[in-house]
């Protein structure tokens, strides 16, 4: 992502999740969002198939036993 794309994504997503960004924090947020974008490139480059499911597996919750 270019610097402009990163800045645009940060501003758009901050508005979407209603997260105000103070001027003092903005440079750091841009730097870390850019680092996350680099990490995303590595992740997105891994070819995945239909059967590559998520590691986040839901566990059903049983009701408490009756007293």
């Amino acid at each position, binding site marked *: 992502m270019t610097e402009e794309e990163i800045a645009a994504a940060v501003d758009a997503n901050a508005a979407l999740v209603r*997260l105000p960004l103070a001027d003092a924090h903005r440079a750091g947020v841009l*730097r870390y969002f850019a680092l996350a974008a680099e990490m995303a490139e590595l992740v997105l480059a891994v070819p*995945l198939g239909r059967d590559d499911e998520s*590691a986040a597996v839901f566990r059903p919750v049983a009701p408490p036993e009756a007293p």
Partner: protein
Amino acid sequence: MSSPASLLLAGSATEIARAVRAGECSASGLCEAALERIEATDGRINAFTAVTAERARARARALDALPLDAALPLRGVPFAVKNLFDVAGLPTLAGAKIEADRSAAAADATLVRRLEAAGAVLVGALNMDEYAYGFTTENTHYGPTRNPHDPARVSGGSSGGSAAAVAAGQVPVTLGSDTNGSIRVPSSLCGVFGLKPTFGRLSRAGTYPFVASLDHLGPFARSVADLAAFYDAMQGADALDPACAQRRDEPVGPTLATGIGGLRVATLGGWFETMAGPQARAAVRRVAESLGASATVEWPLARAARAAAFLITNAEGASLHLEDLRTRPDDFEPLSRDRFLAGALLPAHWVLRAQRVRQRFAREVAECFAHVDLLLAPATPVVAPPIGTETLDINGVVLPARPSLGLLTQPVSCIGLPVCAVPVWGVHETLPIGVQIIAAPWREDLALRAAAALEAAGVCHAPVARL
């Protein structure tokens, strides 16, 4: 002059428990020795954020009133926990200023209860990086925890207080958490043994989460037998932690001293070699030689797995704190605040894809473990850097210091493998560095057997720092 209790305190937990069970020393005597050692040394180390002296004395007195033959394997052993564990009557700080204003915990965390039920005595809570998001324990709110082997250097993190308290001889065993390396990194930098069990092995109930998808808990100690004794006392299913496996106890104590005969050990290459400095690689060679590991294997997806762990951590950690990030960002740790803020803004696709890559990587590694029992890798790229270090030079590549200390631990915790971090001395003039002994899921017993063999051979040891 050293008292018998203070001499015992500088030794092992298993010897303390034996001496107390034999009536050679009281739990109260050990408790006082630990409190005195903390009082005498913590001004230089800053491992503790709370000392629970009154509670500890009451617990020790209660133990001393019990018959000597009571079934208490950890009888009289003082221990302390990272301050993200609930301790009844204390606010659970998780290293944060924000949490200091919250209500005190009503009950102890599951693991604290299990250890006290086995006879151990909690003496306090330990410093950490805020919300566990760091690898150095340079905590701006509560001060940095200093490395007992060189107080000008970091202790590692995020469980820095847990490793430093053990290295400083304040207590023989502590508990910490490990999401991306937070047990193994401080173990490496402070020269102690650390165990990150399989994801889901130990209950996390009653602890402040960082990233529920990746959080593990485990012990630090100065001997492998102590790690094993505490680990065995903490095992067991717990319905209060949805990630805790419904699995029978698998005690490691009985097989600890059976040696490494028949075990296939190899060294991890690729990412784990490229991102390790010369001293880290020398430490791995020394351990490999002792364990007879001549082969090298690679995990092609290790770098992508590290990236997946980074994204999951960033997004999930930020989501947990979104309301405080919106309303009081200036109360966060300045060293991690901007990372948290950025994490709240990541596209869902990145994070969901990271969870799928994580599963793919776990399958790849499972196939690798069909041919090998244990794998070796450095725990940190370098020895403990000075407090305030901003960059690391790793084989000519300059990287930001704080996140890079976890480069070699992140891919391993990403897929929940059990790891024993063992301390190696002599590859640096004065400082230790750790090696990860990595096993397949649920095979903590093998990693600990190898660690015990290395300790017995004198390749690894964890001395109390001279303070």
